[in-house]
């Protein structure tokens, strides 16, 4: 982890309020792993005061570049859209604990909703490079808001898509449910929806696969010092004790069984 300056290579509008930022920053790009994140200082002023955390979308190690996919939700991200090619940008990273890909994994599934799909693209990229088969279950409010389609297709992933506008009864995990009796996954990874996380967790109990989720929480430092971004999690599988864990340090990736919300 370090604080370093990167150079903006490209800041491209993708769709709706989603943008893709490509940064040349070899020192981070060569180390960062799927599920980890970087803290971005969006300008060199005191307003906005805090950095903004973004999980890795893709990395191009040889070129020393990484990509962050971001959604415009407030002042900080709105300012990010004005960043021009060639501008220097202050980053801290890589931060946090990323996804675990089991050593002998053959097949994994990623389940993402909306902008929450972003870290799963990085994971699918790494997995497919290692020859792991990746099944993608993607969901969004509307079909054109599905994230990462192009990238997942390029990686040769098997795709299952869901849009609320087209079918608000089923969930994208229903496809997973159908496949599961016959297909064995070495890990299922979810991000972007509490509902989907709960579904994935329930299926993991039934079929006994490892399942991980990437969580979000407002952050100040991103490297563990401020203890601001804690979430309440179960400490053990028996759920005998809860504790606070930092999303930035012990996470952002947790096992789904840790998440209190999946039992509701």
């Amino acid at each position, binding site marked *: 982890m370090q604080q370093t300056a990167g150079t903006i290579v490209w800041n491209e509008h993708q769709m709706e309020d989603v943008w893709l930022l490509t940064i040349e920053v070899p020192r981070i790009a060569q180390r960062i792993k799927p599920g980890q994140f970087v803290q971005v200082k969006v300008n060199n*002023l005191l307003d906005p005061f805090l950095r903004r955390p973004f999980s890795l979308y893709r990395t191009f190690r040889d070129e020393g570049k990484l990509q962050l996919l971001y959604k415009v939700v407030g002042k900080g991200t709105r300012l990010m859209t004005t960043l021009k090619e060639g501008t220097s940008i202050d980053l801290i990273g890589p931060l946090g604990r990323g996804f675990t890909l089991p050593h002998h994994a053959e097949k994994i599934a990623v389940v993402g909703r909306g902008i929450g799909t972003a870290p799963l693209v990085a994971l699918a990229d790494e997995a497919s490079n290692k020859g792991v088969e990746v099944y993608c279950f993607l969901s969004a409010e509307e079909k054109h808001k599905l994230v990462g389609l192009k990238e997942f297709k390029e990686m040769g992933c098997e795709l299952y898509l869901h849009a609320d506008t087209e079918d608000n009864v089923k969930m994208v995990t229903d496809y997973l449910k159908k496949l599961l009796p016959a297909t064995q996954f070495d890990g299922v990874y979810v991000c972007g929806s509490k509902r989907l996380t709960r579904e994935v967790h329930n299926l993991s109990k039934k079929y006994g696969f490892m399942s991980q989720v990437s969580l979000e929480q407002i952050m100040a430092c991103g490297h563990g010092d401020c203890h601001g971004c804690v979430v309440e999690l179960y400490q053990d599988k028996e759920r005998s004790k809860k504790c606070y864990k930092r999303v930035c340090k012990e996470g952002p990736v947790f096992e789904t069984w840790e998440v209190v919300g999946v039992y509701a």
Partner: protein
Amino acid sequence: MIKSVKAEIVENKPIAPEFFRMTLKAETLASEGLPGQFVMVKVSPNLEPFLRRPISLHQINREEATVSLLYQVVGKGTRLMSETQKGKVIELLGPLGKGFTWSDSDRVVALVGGGCGTAPLVALAHSLLEDKKEVHVLLGAQTKEKLVCEEDFISMGAKVKVATDDGSYGHHGFVTDLLKNLIHDVALDMVYSCGPLPMTKEVVKLTQEASIPCQISLEERMGCGIGACIGCVCKVRTKDGAFTYKKVCKDGPVFKGEEVMFDD
């Protein structure tokens, strides 16, 4: 009439070390603005820097409906201004304050500018020359490099003399040395001054000794720029020999030399 205007930046480029000239498409400012008046510039869309920056009108081009601001990068606000790109629209308030005045009976006048204080004198010289006055311009700068606008004055037809602190160009010494000589050589009807406080004080002293009326443009930290906050006051003599505080933004920024009381 004060107006809140949005103006497009037509040009924003350095003209000397630390000095930038920003030209804005702003019809009302161009048609209503007078030499010596200023605008309050919102330099950032954020809460920091919080206050607007007061910048005097440097050039007023009625035909092209543009005004220019000449500013020196001294802090965060002006640095941000210098980084704002051509084509961007910025928010301004103006024209503000009371500018320089002249009458038909004034035939020969001198303009004394120090550093960035030279900026409003360009618009003033332009108007005075249009009115067929004989205009002497005395410019002071730290070094030759930091001398601004000499060419502008010459091409307008003003008689220009220069002093530099380090002697790298023109007279080695203060611009007020040049004024002393000019007062000796030429019968002046009015002296206009804008620059650092020690220079302004000296101009007032010299003109008073020679019984020449003088107008000085003052600088003060401003809150609102329109007279509401009463933050930017200067001491002005009252008839009974005491003083009152007048607002630099509204009653000024141009004052008669003899009315302002300087604290030593």
